[in-house]
């Protein structure tokens, strides 16, 4: 993975920079010891490691602003970091950059039940928000698998999803406002407890911007009342094609489940061996459909899904009788990654989205990719929204296997784009998929996106080397290429 060439003149100034940062963030908030910096050398994408030049952990928005002002003046790069659980390397440090961590922004600032929102600092975990409001019957809907550890600020940066986003939306649909510091140190507030923007929807473009546009220092999210009931169906199919058809038929019948997850045979076996969730072992595909809402609605929809599943050749079907059983159905799925970790020394978790109808085709072609490269692939999906998480199993101790696994990953993602899908459903591009952006976007597409970056950070000081394979200078991007005299286009109908 090629990162921008580090600026050695900046690296030589480590001590001076650390001193200046200590004047802004006193105490233990500035880390520059080689051993201590190692703790920050990667995020959840552990294949790539690079200790940062310095780590700074501010505690207030003003400190963040002062740090950015200083770095802006000194032309020092910044890599923002939330909880460090990201899976695409968005928080991968730069050798000549300062990693700015938001781990000290840990307070929930306000809970407003009447307006159904929570104002929180960005370092609070995703689950921390639900924990703070669930005694009153509320919760925060987006639920990425890492919700126990990942921070809400990081969720905004990655526009995180989860198993419930088919029905309840992604992070972007659940964030009402942010306070953010721009690279020049200016503090900007977008949105609040009200809906929509009075001007351009800047908040909308901040969500999923992977730390390239600003540093989020406060987030306002909407909270929802917990549904009365949730029930899950555990449905086994003799083939993945049957399962795929069932997914399509459920949606076509007008049912939008709270969650609809699918696992293939290798995953079923690995998870069953690990957590003993009681999964049937004689099926090729196993689906969990969760229906939540008012009691009467859940009963009705469970019956509807059951009928569709039977028509789709389901060979196993069980409906949860109580919450304990429902949680048991989920336990396998939620532990799929560690379960795979038990059967393989290393794995890469791929994240792409495809049109639902292409599920069977993509699975079949993925088998081909797996065979071609000689690496096993296990599959879990958010089937309801077509978000795939193939797990590529490999052993990094075998020379060349990491590289092979990366090739498998690239082939699978290219396949996703080819069938009409996208490179990332919820993990972001980061460094992991940066060089594949060209499979989905033209040069003009990416340039137009980068012009948005130029509006926020014209000098590319904030998280450079992420998302976009090529860094164009903003002055270059701003130039117009106009062909005069080509007029008057006689074939356009005029009046």
């Amino acid at each position, binding site marked *: 993975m090629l990162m921008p060439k580090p600026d050695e003149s900046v690296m030589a100034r480590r001590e001076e920079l650390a001193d200046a940062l200590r004047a802004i963030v006193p105490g233990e908030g500035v880390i520059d010891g080689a051993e201590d910096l190692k703790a920050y050398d990667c995020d959840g994408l552990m294949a790539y490691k690079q200790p940062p030049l310095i780590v700074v952990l501010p505690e207030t928005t003003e400190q963040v602003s002062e740090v950015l002002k200083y770095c802006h003046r000194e032309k020092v790069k910044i890599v923002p970091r939330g909880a460090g659980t990201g899976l695409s390397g968005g928080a991968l440090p730069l050798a000549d950059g300062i990693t700015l961590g938001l781990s000290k922004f840990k307070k929930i600032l306000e809970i407003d039940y*009447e*307006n*159904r929102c929570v104002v929180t600092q960005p370092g609070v975990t995703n689950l921390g928000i639900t924990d703070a409001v669930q005694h009153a019957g509320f919760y925060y809907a987006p639920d990425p698998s890492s919700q126990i550890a990942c921070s809400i600020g990081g969720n905004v940066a990655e*526009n995180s999803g989860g198993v419930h986003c*088919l029905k309840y939306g992604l992070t972007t*649909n659940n964030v009402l406002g942010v306070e953010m510091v721009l690279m020049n140190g*200016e*503090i*900007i507030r977008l949105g609040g407890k*009200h*809906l*929509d923007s*009075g*001007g*351009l*929807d800047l*908040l*909308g*473009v901040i969500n*999923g911007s992977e730390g390239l546009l600003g540093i989020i220092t406060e987030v306002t999210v909407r909270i929802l*009342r917990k549904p009365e009931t949730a029930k899950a169906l555990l449905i086994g199919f003799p083939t993945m094609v049957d399962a795929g058809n069932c997914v*399509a038929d459920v949606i076509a019948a007008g049912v*939008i489940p709270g969650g609809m997850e699918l696992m293939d045979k290798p995953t079923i076996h690995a998870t069953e061996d690990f957590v003993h969730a009681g999964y049937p072992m004689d099926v090729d595909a196993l689906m969990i459909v969760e229906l939540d809402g*008012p009691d*009467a*609605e859940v*009963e009705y*929809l469970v019956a509807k899904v059951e009928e569709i599943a039977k028509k789709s050749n389901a060979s196993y079907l069980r409906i949860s009788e109580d919450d304990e059983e429902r949680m048991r159905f989920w336990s396998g799925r939620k532990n799929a990654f560690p379960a795979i970790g038990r059967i393989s020394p290393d794995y890469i978790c791929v994240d792409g*989205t495809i049109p639902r*109808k292409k599920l069977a085709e993509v699975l079949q072609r993925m088998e081909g990719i797996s065979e071609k490269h000689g690496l096993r692939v296990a599959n879990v999906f958010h089937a309801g*929204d077509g978000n795939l998480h193939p797990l590529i199993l490999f052993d990094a101790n075998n020379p060349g296997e990491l590289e092979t696994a990366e090739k498998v990953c690239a082939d699978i993602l290219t396949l996703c784009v080819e069938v*009409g*899908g*996208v490179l*990332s459903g919820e993990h972001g*591009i980061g460094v992991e998929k940066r060089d594949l952006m060209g499979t989905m*976007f*033209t040069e*003009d597409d990416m340039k*137009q*996106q980068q012009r*948005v*970056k*130029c*509006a926020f950070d014209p000098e590319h000081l904030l998280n450079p080397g992420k998302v*976009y394979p090529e860094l164009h200078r903003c002055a270059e*991007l*701003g130039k*117009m*290429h*106009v*062909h*005069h005299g*080509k*007029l*008057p*286009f006689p074939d*356009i*109908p*005029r009046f």
Partner: protein
Amino acid sequence: MSETLRPETNEQLLDAVKWATAEKSPLEIVAMGSKRAFGRPMQTAATLDMSGLSRIKVYEPAELFMTAAAGASMSDVTQALEEAGQQLSFEPPDLGPLLGDEAGKGSIGGVVATNIAGPRRIKEGAARDHVLGFNAVSGRGEVFKSGGTVVKNVTGFDLSKLMAGSFGTLAVMSEVTLKTLPAPEKTQTILISWKADGIYAHAAMSAMAKALGSPHDVSAAAHLPAAVAKRSRVDYVAGAAGAVTAVRVEGPEPSVKHRTETLIKELKLFGDIEELHTSNSKTFWREVRDVQAFVGRDDLPVVWRLSVPPMSGSHTAIDLLEELRGEVMYDWGGGLIWLGLASEAADANADFIRNTVARVGGHATLVRASAASRSNVPVFQPLSSAEQMVTEKINEGFDPNGVLNPGRMYQGI
């Protein structure tokens, strides 16, 4: 009389914008023209008429998306969706009549460009939340795209959000992909009728908050003061002889029945309860969605749209009506206030209105006013200095020569 360019292919659209860019000749972008009076008035050399690009290109109900040319009429879009039992869940309003045009016009591109949303906004989001992707020509005369046809997508910056609500100032969308969802089987509305007006508005906010904070999956909550309620075509509403608060429940029949019964028990302490079934419900919420109470009202020449924290709705409106003569109605559980003013002051009372909104946080948009007012008064919420800087630079990145709807949102941008 300015010239009108009416492209019928994407190539012609690109040519038209390239011409405008090369000549620095500003274009006003229109399709059906139903919301032409929304925003600041513009002086442009030419009009870009998008109604020639009107085809629904792909509609796959099972994949829950539709891709349509930006000029596709909302009536065609709605018809196709209805045939498949689906809908655009953000409930796009038909603002034409409110703005003095006829009903039933409007294009999908216009809906996205203005980021409007109806009563279901509180549950399902606005147009911004349903745009999955688009193709467009920037003011640089370049074709670009963003997003795709799938819901889960974090691949590059989400330019769809930026396009939604940009009023055509950044790029001309040639086609848009929107999320489609199953239409509910059944709709039921619970009406609370209040015995008097005025201070009851505060209690109405509480009633709506109670309904929206319940597990009964309420999909809309509006409050109509007496003067607005009496204009309804739904007898129960018009005949209530006072203010009416309405709460909507949608879904499969047994669920709707159960939730309605439970909600009635929880809400009856606020006032007398009445129920509207599917047909009356649909009429009623269409009235709310399209602000029909303020349509054709020469006695309310100015209409503002205010977005505030829901529980601040009644306080904000009552503070405003203590100084200004007019009428209000509330949607989005109190978070959306439509304010009609009985007279057109020189500044359309912008400063007073915006200062009042600023006390609770939110924004105010001048939706209906004379062209003179709309060019003198900031139609959209004035920006903070940081927002201004970013907005100007974003605009510059998309449309450096200022040829696309220049000045439609802000003077000089």
